[in-house]
């Protein structure tokens, strides 16, 4: 099978508190997944579960404690991510944080072209910028000479996508690109991802906790909980027929825009992240309605259930 990006046994350990502190958390714990060409893959889960850490390692902003990342068949060379720069581009959560308020927005575009030596003349640069802006429904004229404050959040987010497209990447890593924008703009951004996939063959790693948009645009999804991938498969299987108790909780917590389906019953929340990260056995055991004796002592194995990967004792034989 064709794999554009493959993450194998990725682990990242952080020391908590001071350097001398012995307390360590495994923010990402031995996770593996791959992304196909022209695929939108979602990485979902509550805040603090390790999504951004995974993204930052893929982007080369952070070193893994263990594990490998392979891009188009090329394994990463130690600390030298030659492939990352052009082939993979990033989009972040806060569109206002991406651009310096005192610099005209177009400068970022010219800078990227210069850094990657992608234009031989100013006229060619403008042509290229204009073409990428057209892909996101804007044009060079819309942004020439303007500063970030002159755009809405949604426009800025589309502008940052256009900038990411300048290098013709095969993969866009989008870390919570819609969590700060309102419902109407959300759709315009995820619709844009669809267009990029269908028309330009670009893949997207869509990191989010908005499962409704994930269902709408994604092909496959991995659900993370405290550093583990607890369930992975097609969005149809994972979101319409969730198997892992945590996915079931996530799914039941999505506020549906339908007054006939208001939330029923109460839920329990974690008091602190640390408690769960440091838990022995299944990290969800403290909140899981099905927790058994063994769940509290030994982490469950990952098993395949009807094409879906699930990490929970409910789907495997407890060891004797």
């Amino acid at each position, binding site marked *: 099978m064709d794999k554009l990006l493959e993450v194998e046994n990725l682990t990242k350990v952080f020391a908590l508190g001071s350097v001398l502190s012995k307390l360590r958390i495994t923010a990402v714990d031995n996770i593996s997944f791959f992304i196909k060409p022209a695929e939108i893959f979602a990485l979902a889960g509550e805040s603090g579960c390790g999504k951004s850490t995974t993204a930052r390692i893929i982007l080369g902003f952070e070193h893994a404690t263990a594990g490998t990342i392979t891009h188009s068949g090329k394994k990463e060379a130690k600390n030298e991510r030659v492939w990352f720069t052009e082939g993979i581009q990033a989009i972040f959560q806060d569109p206002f944080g991406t651009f310096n308020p005192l610099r005209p927005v177009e400068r970022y575009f010219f800078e990227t072209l210069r850094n990657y030596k992608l234009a031989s003349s100013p006229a060619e640069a403008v042509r290229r910028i204009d073409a990428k802006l057209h892909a996101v429904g804007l044009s060079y004229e819309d942004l020439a000479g303007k500063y970030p404050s002159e755009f809405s959040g*949604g426009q800025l987010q589309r502008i940052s996508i256009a900038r990411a497209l300048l290098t013709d990447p095969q993969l866009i890593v989008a870390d919570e690109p819609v969590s700060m924008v309102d419902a109407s*703009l959300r759709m315009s951004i995820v619709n844009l991802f669809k267009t990029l996939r269908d028309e330009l063959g670009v893949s997207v790693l869509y990191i989010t*906790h908005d499962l409704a948009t994930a269902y709408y645009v994604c092909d496959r999804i991995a659900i993370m909980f405290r550093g583990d991938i607890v369930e992975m498969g097609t969005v149809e299987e994972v979101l319409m027929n969730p198997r892992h108790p945590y996915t079931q909780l996530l799914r039941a917590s999505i506020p*549906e825009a339908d007054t006939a389906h208001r939330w029923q019953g109460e*839920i329990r929340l974690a008091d602190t992240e640390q408690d769960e990260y440091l838990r022995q056995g299944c990290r969800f055991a403290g909140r899981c309605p099905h927790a058994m004796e063994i769940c509290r002592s030994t982490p469950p194995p990952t098993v395949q259930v009807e094409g879906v990967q699930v990490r929970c004792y409910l789907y495997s034989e407890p060891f004797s």
Partner: protein
Amino acid sequence: MDNTILRTAALQAFYQLDLYGKTKVVKAVNEVDLAIQADEIYGIAGESGCGKSTLLKALVAAVEPPLRVVGGKVTYRIDGKEVDVSTLSPEEKRALRLSYIAYVPQGSMSVLNPVARIRDTYRDFIESHLGRQRHQEAFALAQDHLTDLGLPLKILDAYPHQLSGGMRQRVTIALATLLKPRILIGDEPTTALDVVVQRGVVQLLKEVQARLKNTIVLVTHDMGVHANIADRIGIMYAGRIVEEAATEKIFGAPAHPYTQYLISSLPKFGDKSPRESVPGSPPSLANLPGGCPFHPRCPHVQTRCKEKMPGFTQIEKNHRVACWLVGEGEHGQAA
């Protein structure tokens, strides 16, 4: 029977900015008429920058330059009497804060003092509002309050950074409701929280409302949250409320073209059919288009839309819409 506890009449709140000697006026709240009922959860929705937070600032009388109330008024009903907020002295406003009206601003979970334990934040809060003498008694009250709201007492010994984002937000809400305010105003209390935590915060707000039998005004652009908690919803566009109805009506029979886009663009599980977002981009509140502010983006625009702002048409009891398509706007100024 009129059960209005919080009212605005033709309220206008503008940011007046001095830019290189030229005055720029941002019309963030324009001609808003609200009649919020005692015991209801009133939701306000609208896209980013449409004036939601500004409206809330005016409701809680937290208007500071460059923001000014340039027209209309806000009134509270306190012990059966209508009180015009603009007549209150700073002392009177302070006395009403938290005991009568409490405000949880946007991004407020970051306001907890990072170097103080939650216990100390509570103590400071109680002392500043009730005085030292009643401290012991009040602290017992705080513990009861947390227990009532289903929050674990051990959080009192934690520092804010040790709590998850959702727990911080719930602590902020618990603090704001300690003095049992009649009105609680929340600005995006669930935004940027993940869905499970969001549900926990909504659960808490409902719990607060059930116990205190008070009024909640909730701003969020998450329509799913509105569907789950609000009794009535006001849809805001470019500084104005353009539609207002019971939550079921807003979702089931939206009448304003903007509301219709808002509702139909929401993704649904089990339905992958393409969804359109609202075309175009929001207008600048410093340079509004004439007539109906939605006209440059509206698929149903007619000539008169560009010339004159439609008034409200009451299409049903408790369902009003400001759009020429719907009626002649004979039911009051478009708020």
